[in-house]
């Protein structure tokens, strides 16, 4: 008949099992890893104390992940500030904004955003050719022709 584990040993086994299971390992794998006999964890899973240990472990891991994410977001923010301050990257951002501007994808212009999709299929001429000077001036000021 197997020797009954002492409360201290039982708790130690529960912690080993909870840590292993939190990492997705099987009971057999955890036992092998720690040089324990197969079946050593039998009956522990149903113990409310084990559930409390497992819940505590998961909670602890979650809070650690949150802390890591906070640290990483601070690092990410710093990286972004560094990039924005780097002259060469500023040039690249400016160049990117310039091409968006030149292709009509300005953030401020809804009218042009809609026309960008049409670049390549709608000849610009079709819209402007034959328009009166007054119409063109209206378009230049309002971004649309009179009556639209």
């Amino acid at each position, binding site marked *: 008949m197997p020797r009954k584990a002492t409360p201290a040993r039982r708790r130690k086994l529960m912690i080993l099992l909870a840590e292993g299971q939190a990492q997705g390992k099987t009971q057999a794998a955890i036992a092998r890893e720690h040089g324990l006999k197969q079946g050593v964890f039998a009956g522990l899973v149903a113990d409310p104390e084990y559930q409390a240990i497992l819940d505590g472990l998961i909670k602890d891991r979650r809070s650690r992940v949150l802390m890591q994410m906070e640290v990483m977001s601070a690092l990410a923010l710093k990286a972004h500030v560094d990039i924005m301050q780097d002259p060469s990257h500023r040039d690249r951002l400016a160049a990117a904004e310039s091409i968006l501007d030149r292709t009509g994808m300005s953030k401020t212009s809804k009218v042009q955003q809609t026309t960008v999709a049409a670049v390549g299929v709608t000849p610009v001429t079709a819209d402007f*050719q034959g328009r009166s000077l007054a119409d063109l001036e209206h378009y230049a000021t309002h971004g649309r022709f009179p009556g639209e």
Partner: protein
Amino acid sequence: MTLPKDPKRVTHSIHKSSLRRMGWGDPHPKTPLRAAWEWYCTTVSNDVMAISLEAAIWLDDHARTLPAGASVLDLGSGFSTWVLARHGLRVHTMDTDAVWLERTLQWLQRESMAGLVTSQVWAPGDPIPVGFAFASADMGERRIRSIYYADAFRAAPVVFVDDFNDRAVSCAAYKAAHQTGKRIQELGAETRDGFGRFGALAVDL
């Protein structure tokens, strides 16, 4: 998104210029002009700020048709200045940005072309000289282009307008054409680049 490996299987919804940017069916062989443009875009400027290779090729072809020594106006200095000067044309280049203009002139000096080029910083309200055989208009931000297009169109019988795909630019060009008695001819097929940019011509009626 995974791109198809065989360009022949690409659907027609992908524009040929996109294929070119992906390195498929490149229609521009490694000519001296292309080599110079690639060098320019990696040392002096970049392919976003600079005139597109497609527009540069068009300018180059047109410059060939002009008599050597003819005066041309280059509004917006840069690679276009080099393209025009390399055909022995006398180029008057203007720019809103004095620092950029100086940078272009230094580059042209290294290319032994400075003798063909005169330069001038332009600010809104400044006059634009006239009497040129040809002009290229690609100077300053979009919002200021409507200010000088009419003057630019009076400067030469044929004027190349870059960034015509931009409706603010094309609207300003059509306005200037009304005011100066020119007609607009799109160069979409000839100059459209991978960003969708293309130019147009303003020519005398």
